[in-house]
């Protein structure tokens, strides 16, 4: 213990982000280079390099935060390191050129908190991000970790814990937003004639494309989830917990397993936790990556080793869950919120957010946006604030078109609704949903029919096939969308598409099917014109649907500006372009396969697309 | 006395349940068989005391037939086996007395075997007729 705590003696702590995004940008090599350089400069006694979980600003990785001072370095490369070490850590002169510069090209911002991306964030679930080494329980404890557990186990009755959670207004962060305290109460009160067992389960089967909140939490702060689960177990009277985590998250898996090991060694897990006589342990169940296993009943079936498909509810897992016993199943982010509520109190927590939705929500901000990354914002913040202030707006000066929230199950929200304050109800009203927190930003170059088709093809592919509407309906819808993007759609198709979407939403068995039509429904609602253009004019306004594009060469531009450079002809795979060097070129439409290569290679803008 | 004129005198000890009924069946079925056999009914072939056989020969019988149920079918479970054993021993003794063993016969005739009884009866009569009269002077003839 003594040895482990020596880190406090160092003058500087270099927090190297080791989230998946930064790791793939070689942050481990950066870390090694830093250590090498520091040793070389003889600073080993003064400067300590720490690997942390995901910082959130993934767009700018690999990242380094220097503590104290909160100096933020970004997009580091190996050759920057000697200079950085010498200038900053040895000579005390922060290196400006490695700091973050806002898109408008203003002065670099040295301090993390002052960067727009971080400024508006409120960190609860991600409270320890960038501040601790996720592989060291001591770091977590040093940040008041497991304080809430001590409080819950020694000073509170299970009823009091549940009451606190209820009072906090915490709702499930997995998407549906069911009040967590209420769920706990159900499980606590559920009859356990069947052997008296109860379970808590952490749903870490994050499958939405473009979403990585759960992964980041598990990678950056696994103990917060463990602590939340132990508190939950105490509250409902469970003896065994499971974390269901997909096998595609090897880093999260590794860190979680390590964290569980550490927690057991510290007596925070296992038998007689903290000497209170309470027994509880957590097992890790690995998922094979089926999207439907994020649905709670399918997830439980998967843990049991059965076919991962949902079953009708009721009975709810709270009544009959894992192996037939009452089970409390919450999402990673929900569990991570629990310790904070217990230690800081429900009143503090419920001050954040809106009337119906309390606290914060983590979003993964991706798509056509400057600051891609993970953000935790208070409920009630507007989309505009997230996208334009935190996210830094749309790159390339393009026009914002829509934002898709809630993953493939969510909907697309248009420009007009940018000032929508985000909470569970408002998003549902807008035709989308909170979901687990995916947020895909789209600019003017996006075809909304294509977007709907993309998300639908995902859900169609991931449908388990159990119920008719989801299995057959999503395929039927996809077929129609396919026809529309090929210019073969009719207006009757549009009606059928809408009928199908409504019917699937109303009659599908599980959440996957019920929400699968959302992208179609919202795009139909907000971008119906685009569909009609596809159908009536056989045109794709964003030129994304290639089958509808017509490529032509403006002979004047070709000759006068490009001097008939012949690049397009040489690159055309289907030999559809005729013309000689120094002569204007022409596309033979019958031969054109609409691959768009000529458009891409023409430096003079002579190739037009309609 | 010519051979043809010789009518053998035969004594038959028939068990009540099988052979006697078999004989009865032969009768009710109107089967004709040699009238030479004189039947004495006993409840079981196991009741036939060797003395009865000797007595029959002594009294002038030319042949003695013991007939009982087929093995396993005895109304008294195993009386016919006893009869079988006694027949073996007695046959040997009779030979020593000079009486041909053919004259002492054991047959299994069931209640259903009217025809077999007829056949046994006819055969035995012919056989004894062929052997000729038994001139045994161990009996009354000397007195």
């Amino acid at each position, binding site marked *: 213990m003594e040895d482990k705590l020596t880190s406090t003696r160092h003058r500087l702590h270099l927090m190297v982000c080791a989230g998946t995004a930064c790791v793939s940008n070689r942050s481990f090599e950066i870390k090694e280079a830093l250590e090498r350089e520091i040793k070389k400069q003889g600073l080993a006694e003064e400067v300590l390099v720490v690997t942390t979980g995901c910082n959130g600003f993934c767009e700018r990785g690999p990242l380094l935060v220097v503590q104290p001072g909160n100096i933020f370095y970004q997009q580091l490369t190996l050759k920057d390191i000697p200079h950085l070490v010498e200038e900053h850590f040895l000579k005390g002169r922060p290196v400006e050129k490695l700091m973050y510069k806002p898109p408008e090209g203003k002065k670099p911002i040295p301090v993390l908190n002052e960067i727009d991306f971080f400024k508006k964030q409120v960190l609860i679930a991600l409270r320890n991000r960038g501040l601790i080494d996720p592989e060291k329980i001591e770091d977590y404890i040093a940040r008041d970790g497991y304080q809430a557990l001590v409080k819950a186990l020694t000073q509170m009755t299970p009823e009091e814990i549940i009451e606190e959670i209820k009072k906090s207004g915490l709702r499930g962060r997995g998407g549906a937003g069911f009040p967590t305290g209420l769920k706990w109460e159900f499980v606590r009160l559920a009859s356990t004639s069947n052997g008296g067992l109860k379970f808590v389960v952490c749903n870490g089967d994050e499958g939405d494309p473009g979403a990585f909140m759960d992964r980041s939490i598990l990678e950056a702060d696994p103990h917060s989830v463990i602590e939340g689960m132990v508190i939950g177990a105490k509250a409902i009277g469970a003896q065994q917990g499971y974390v269901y985590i997909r096998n595609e998250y090897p880093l999260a898996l590794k860190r979680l397993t390590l964290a569980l090991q550490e927690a057991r060694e510290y007596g925070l897990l296992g038998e007689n936790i903290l000497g209170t006589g309470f027994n509880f342990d957590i097992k890790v169940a690995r998922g094979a990556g089926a999207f439907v296993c994020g649905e709670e009943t399918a997830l439980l079936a998967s843990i049991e080793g059965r076919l991962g498909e949902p079953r*009708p509810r009721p009975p709810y897992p709270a009544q009959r869950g894992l192996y037939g016993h009452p089970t409390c199943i919450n999402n990673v982010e929900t569990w991570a919120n629990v310790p904070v509520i217990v230690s800081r109190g429900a009143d503090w927590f419920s001050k954040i957010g809106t009337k119906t939705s309390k606290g914060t929500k983590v979003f993964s901000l991706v798509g056509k946006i400057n600051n891609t990354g993970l953000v935790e914002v208070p409920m009630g913040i507007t989309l505009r604030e997230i996208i334009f202030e935190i996210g830094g707006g749309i790159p390339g000066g393009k026009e914002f078109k829509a934002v898709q929230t809630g993953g493939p199950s969510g909907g697309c929200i248009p420009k007009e609704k940018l000032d929508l304050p985000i909470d569970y109800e408002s998003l549902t009203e807008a035709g989308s949903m909170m979901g687990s927190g995916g947020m895909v930003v789209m600019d003017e170059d996006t075809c909304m029919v294509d977007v709907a088709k993309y998300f639908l093809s995902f859900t169609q592919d991931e449908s388990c096939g159990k119920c008719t509407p989801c299995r*057959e309906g999503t395929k039927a819808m996809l077929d129609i969308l396919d026809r529309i993007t090929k210019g073969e759609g009719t207006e009757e198709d549009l009606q059928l598409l809408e009928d199908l979407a409504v019917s699937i939403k109303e009659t599908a068995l599980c959440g996957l099917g019920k929400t699968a039509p959302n992208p179609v429904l919202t795009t139909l609602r907000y971008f119906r014109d685009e569909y009609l253009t596809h159908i009536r004019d056989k045109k794709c306004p964003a030129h994304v649907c290639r089958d509808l594009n017509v490529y032509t060469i403006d002979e004047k531009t070709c000759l006068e500006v490009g001097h008939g450079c012949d690049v397009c002809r040489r690159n055309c795979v289907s030999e559809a372009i005729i013309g000689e060097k120094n002569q204007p070129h022409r596309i033979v439409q019958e031969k054109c396969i609409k691959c768009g290569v000529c458009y891409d290679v023409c430096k003079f803008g002579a190739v037009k697309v309609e | 006395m010519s051979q043809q004129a010789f009518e053998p005198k035969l004594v038959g000890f028939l068990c009540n349940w099988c052979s006697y009924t078999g004989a009865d069946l032969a009768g009710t079925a109107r089967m004709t068989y040699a009238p030479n056999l004189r039947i004495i009914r006993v409840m079981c072939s196991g009741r036939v005391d060797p003395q009865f056989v000797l007595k029959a020969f002594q009294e002038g019988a030319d042949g003695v037939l013991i007939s009982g149920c087929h093995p396993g079918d005895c109304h008294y479970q195993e009386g016919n086996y006893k009869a079988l054993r006694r027949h073996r021993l007695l046959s040997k003794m009779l030979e020593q007395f000079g009486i041909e063993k053919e004259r002492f016969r054991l047959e299994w005739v069931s209640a259903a075997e009217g025809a077999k009884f007829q056949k046994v009866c006819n055969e035995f009569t012919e056989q004894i007729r062929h052997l000729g009269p038994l001139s045994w002077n161990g009996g009354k003839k000397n007195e």
Partner: protein
Amino acid sequence: MIQITIDGKKLEVEEGTTILQAAEKAEIHIPTLCYHPLLEPYASCRVCVVEVNRQGKKELVTSCNTQVQPGMVIETQSERALRARKLNVEMLLARAPAAKPVQKIALELGIEKPRFEIKDPDRKCILCGLCVRTCEQVVGANAISFINRGQEREVSPPFGEPSEACIGCTACAYFCPTEAITFEDIHDRKVIHDELYLGPSTAIRVPVRQAVPMVPFIDEDNCIHFKTGNCQLCVKVCEKEAINHEMKEEEIEIEVGSIILASGFKSFDAYRIPAYGYGRFPNVITALEFERLVNASGPTGGKILLANGEEPKAVGIIHCVGSRDENYNEYCSRVCCMYSLKFAHLIKEKTEADIYDFYIDMRCFGKGYEEFYHRLLHEGTKFIRGRVSEITDIPLTEEEDGKLIIRVEDTLIGTVRRIPVDMVILATGLEPGLSHSELAHTFNISCSQDTFFLERHPKLAPVSTFSDGIFLAGTCQAPKDIPDTVAQAGAAASEALALADKGSFELEPITAEIDEKLCAGCQICVSLCPFSAITYNKEKHISEVNEALCKGCGTCVAACPSGAAQQKHFRDIQIMAEIEGIFID
């Protein structure tokens, strides 16, 4: 009890009732595909959706798994429910156009042709999961499951190979509503008349029609419960709770005063006469098979059909199969003539077929029998006197093509004839029943030459046997028809009752006795007595006979070396006198 409203009807149902069950109670039809009352709701087909109003919130729910709530207002035919139901059925129809139940519901809902892509017009499987759930929940074998997901989902055993877990019970096929799983796929069964199966079809059945008592039993060899320990569906559906799988066969000893043997007969095995082609030609059937075929509860519902499902144009009935034949049984089976006449009459009644009746002699001996024969003669049945020599399917003329040809010597016109027919019924005779000789041995009774049980006396004691207290009734004694059997059974019953009524038993006065004075106590008799009726008296040093046990065989008497043992009425002296008497000319 909960108050609900379905389609405007007010209803009171028990708590825990599903909407579907409540609708059934209200006689409102909700179509379903994946629902089965004996399996847990699966709610996958989404055809049973209805619109409910719960505290002002209107939503679509599946009726098969949604339980009613107080004050629930349910609309099974609302526009919204119908639209969703219709779309779901339309999608299923596109998936499995050959599935009959889907076609039926589609017709009801007015769907003519699905608007969606049909991949396989012959597909029947609608992925309702009844087979998978049956295998899991009922059979407990878990031999099949779903593989792949989404559009590619299908039912399969592990790795698509025949599974060792499969017990071949065919329950999956039984539960399959679309015939996507068929018997032939799974198990080799004798198939007759298209898709109807002859023979035991379920593990619970009445041993025979008209069985007495009319009580079903569980066939342990075919019952799933005895293979996997699961199922017990019968227990679930039996309201009287009359089924107990724990029951074991047990031997019960009952003390009785008398026994009536009525062990019946077995039908002559027609395979024994190869010339008649039974087993080779599917349309050569025995009398009992025809009886089953013509029975209204039989496999064809009483229709007389050939193996190919067509009605026969000519039928031959052959008498005396296995009877009155030196090669098989010499006796007349007595009933065949009359039942053959009955068959001829039934065939005449139900079909247009020509009927040929091949007989040796018509034996219409009973009351009203001869008159029935005459009626048949007038009805046009063709009677041919002569024993059939052969049945063949090798035609000599065009007319005989595809027919069964009966070769027979018509003794009335003195020529050999070939008669082409479609179906031949063999009037098989009667033979003693199964384990007949074992029974004879057990009860120590005799069999007559035809191997039927032998009565004590054909005229004077026709129902008694040589064993006291054991009586005969029915065809175990000799072939006889039903009236005769009933009469004989009545007689046997009265004999048995008379014995019981008397309360005492008369012993034959032929028991053995031992003269105390002569007995030397050698105990030879003790070991010989098969009934243990003789015991040795140690005090008196003599053997003594227990007269109640003595059956009077006289074995002991014959063996007694001292002449102390004597049998009443069969004393040595009496028999000696008899012998002497024989020779007094």
